[in-house]
């Protein structure tokens, strides 16, 4: 399941559509064909974390129109698929799991509210993702709101900060 999902999401389905970013030194390739070192290393480990969310996401994509008690559209299955791709590409092995909720606009929202960070990814379809990031340790800084299509670098920065902050807390203890 891990190997199949990894191959279908990254190496075949999307590899021809998206150019690799130019700054390979600081940017891990996403959507494009992976380097051998990536395939053997972090991807396999992080898959364990995001894979546990597959049932939650699939369950949401079965929701029909009106699921929210009003007139919300059905949750798009391709929004669910893209949410899983985003998770697979950005989560680290020690990244905390997000809460996965349907959105009243027909998408899926991934939310983290911990480690003094609010991070939300609102996904309404393939390459349609809104990012909301707020750091409560720095209340003078306004929240960051961004729209993401195929470049996940801003999401990766947020996930990395969330993940590393947990490690710093653990080290402090």
């Amino acid at each position, binding site marked *: 399941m891990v190997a199949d999902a990894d191959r279908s999401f990254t190496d075949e389905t999307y590899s021809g559509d998206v150019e690799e970013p130019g700054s390979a030194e600081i940017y891990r390739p996403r959507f494009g064909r992976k380097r051998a070192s990536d395939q053997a290393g972090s991807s396999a480990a992080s898959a364990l974390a995001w894979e546990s969310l597959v049932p939650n996401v699939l369950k*949401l994509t079965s929701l029909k129109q009106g*699921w*929210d*008690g*009003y*007139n*919300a559209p059905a949750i798009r299955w391709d929004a669910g698929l893209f949410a899983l791709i985003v998770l697979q590409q950005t989560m680290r092995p020690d990244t905390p799991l997000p*809460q996965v*909720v*349907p*959105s*009243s*606009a027909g*998408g899926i*929202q991934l*939310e983290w*509210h*911990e*480690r*003094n*960070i*609010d991070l*939300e990814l*609102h996904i309404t379809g393939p390459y349609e993702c*809104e*990012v*909301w990031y707020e750091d*409560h340790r720095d209340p003078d800084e306004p*929240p960051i*709101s961004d729209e993401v299509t195929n470049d996940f670098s801003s999401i990766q920065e947020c996930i990395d900060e969330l993940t590393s902050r947990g490690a710093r807390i653990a080290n402090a203890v």
Partner: protein
Amino acid sequence: MPCKTDDGSIADDAGLLRRIHPSHVVDDHNFGERRASSAAFKDPKLSVDAEPILAEDGLDWSFTLEGYEGYSLARFLAGVAREKNLSVVHDPIRPDNRAHTLVVGKKTPAIAHHLRDRAEWVHLD
């Protein structure tokens, strides 16, 4: 179908009630509380009930939750929506719900958070 607009018939200080689906009550570990997800406020035509109209009909917030076991209920003011240039449009559903109202406009993350942050729990299941 006529285009309905914000005619100001619902005052800025009117409470607007929004049912919150159980999946939209999330754990906020930063503040140790359960709160509504901003995902509950994303609908471009967000359905709510206007409290003053419920009151005119001798009803209260419990009317909005009738038949919706397990749901919670949030309240924000019409003026809070208008602060973000959203339209508050009275849209009665006859004969069932004369208080039905739409908060119309694109809900960017900032706007959805604005509504969520300014909302209060009326009932948390």
